[in-house]
């Protein structure tokens, strides 16, 4: 009985660690899309940059890929934010002056190219076999699954909380107000002396850095990364999470991540139980059909998501 309970708890915390890693990703996207209106179709690419940066820096030396340099995990995570942020800044500098569609197309291209590099630049990334032996936080306790996943859950939850609170502060301050002003009426904001391109670039860069961190955090929890983790399906799931939860709202982003990842896991289990092994790969494509239809349906019928954006005029004005 107690063994069962421990098993369920372990599975539950394992599920939540992944869901909360997605939630960190959603916070990054929420900053780009929810508050600034920037459409990033290359999320998987920025996540991959973070995951690979941290993996290369922290793994023990290997002849299968560049490095590893055996540095502490924290160094890897900070570096993941820096490289993913730099990549975002480059993409942003190139496209944010142009029509909004150009950013979408370019980020889409970034994801394609990053996947190609992960797959083919064997000396850098280890090629199709990916990078293993990534040090896991609290790795010494890996033989006690409940304690190990529980501590990891606490760590991811703490990172998420710090990020969410930090972003809330930032977004409810002057910087966030200007961002939303630009999103709502660029000309008016410009007339008041704000530089839309610069602010968009800042938001896009910060959002990309958060995505890189999420990639590193999840890579370290699993202990292994490979190119196929970073395909368009990932981008798509994160979008579904943010739209379901409600863009422009940090709590919505987290709730959306947990709900969509929950639906995804439950439907995956259902397919495993309902279909014979030979048909499972085929049946799992129905998961994507469902998520795609859900995304479109949310856009059509409840574009604000479950929670939607809290519109704050002034803290002194009573909310309806």
């Amino acid at each position: 009985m107690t063994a069962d309970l421990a098993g369920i708890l372990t599975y539950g915390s394992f599920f939540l660690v992944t869901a909360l890693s997605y939630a960190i990703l959603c916070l990054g996207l929420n900053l780009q899309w929810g508050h600034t209106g920037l459409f990033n179709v290359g999320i998987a690419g920025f996540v991959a940059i973070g995951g690979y940066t941290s993996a290369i820096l922290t793994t023990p030396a290997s002849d299968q890929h560049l490095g590893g340099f055996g540095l502490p995990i924290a160094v890897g995570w900070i570096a993941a934010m820096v490289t993913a942020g730099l990549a975002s800044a480059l993409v942003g500098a190139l496209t944010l002056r142009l029509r909004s569609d150009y950013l979408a197309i370019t980020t889409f291209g970034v994801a394609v190219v990053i996947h190609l590099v992960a797959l083919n630049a064997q000396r850098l990334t280890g090629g199709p076999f990916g990078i293993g032996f990534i040090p896991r936080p609290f790795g010494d306790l890996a033989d006690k699954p409940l304690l190990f996943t529980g501590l990891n859950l606490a760590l991811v939850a703490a990172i998420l909380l710090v990020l969410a609170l930090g972003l809330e502060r930032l977004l409810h301050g002057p910087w966030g107000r200007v961002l939303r002003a630009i999103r709502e009426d660029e000309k008016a904001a410009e007339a008041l002396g704000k530089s839309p391109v610069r602010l968009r670039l800042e938001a896009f860069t910060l959002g990309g850095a958060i995505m890189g961190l999420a990639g590193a955090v999840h890579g370290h929890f699993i202990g292994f990364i490979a190119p196929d983790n970073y395909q368009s399906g990932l981008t798509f799931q994160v979008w579904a999470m943010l739209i379901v939860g409600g863009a422009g709202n940090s709590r919505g982003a987290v709730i959306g991540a947990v709900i969509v990842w929950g639906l995804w896991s439950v439907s995956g289990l259902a397919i495993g139980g309902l279909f014979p092994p030979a048909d499972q790969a085929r049946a799992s494509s129905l998961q994507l059909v469902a998520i795609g239809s859900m995304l479109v349906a949310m856009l059509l019928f409840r574009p604000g998501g479950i929670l939607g954006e809290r519109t704050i005029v002034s803290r002194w004005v009573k909310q309806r």
Partner: protein
Amino acid sequence: MMTAQVLADGVLDGAMIGLGAAGVTLTYSILRFSNFAHGEMLTAGAYAALTVSGALGSLLAGSAEPIGDTSIGWGLIAATCLAMGFTALLAIVLDWLVFARLGRKATSITVVMASFGASMALRALVEFAFTSSPAYFNRDMQIAVPIGLGMRVTPDQVALTVFSLFLIILTHLVLTRTQVGRSMRAVSENPALARLAGVDVAKVVRITWALGGALATGAGVMLGLLVQIRPGMGFDLLLPMFAAAIVGGIGSVPGAFCGAMIVGLGEALTVAIVGPEWRAALAFCALIAVLLIKPSGLFGARA
């Protein structure tokens, strides 16, 4: 000589990308959004043609009998025409179901996102229906014949390049020489003004979708004959198509075709010099180059 063969491969690749890019550029300039589901139009067209030509082959003996030196029978030609109709209809239904409801003006980026969702759902649906294993129109081996300068091409490749050129010229003539084309260009310039002048904007939108779907089917059948048919075929061609449309200048069909030739030749060069596994990176490099140098593209008016 290797270089001449690169030229031949590049032109063939470009002719295929061009058919898709023409559709992308039309939806972009007339419906005002970049349609991420355009790749799936191509996939849908290829699978529709495969299904119809398979049915024709079992119903009418001889429909798969090759014409001339090619591997293409009249059954496949008929199937392609039917598939064009099917894909055109699919595009119109998708517009009616999703894009039109989201509205075409203020938040155009929401429509782009919906097209991204529709793309994923359609691709997964095709994979569920037809499985992810590749399919072929036929398994005939074609022998490449020399055409001078050391270039060798198969009869199919020649026929398909001519087919692509024919469709592009036809589209260009429709846009520049007919009343329908005039209305399409009017909507592209200014929808409100076009409506005031008595243009039926809803009809123009339907025609644009139909044209884009038909051209995508052409590209899909071409890709299916030259390589293979699989659920991700169109999605993998999305970046080259976007790159070609932007290199050529959004809104210009001849521009999209020239852009596609540049991307196609670049891909052939990449394959010859760097290696086939880096092929997909070329479109991205072309895209970045044009955004750095001339964001409006070769023939475009606006960025």
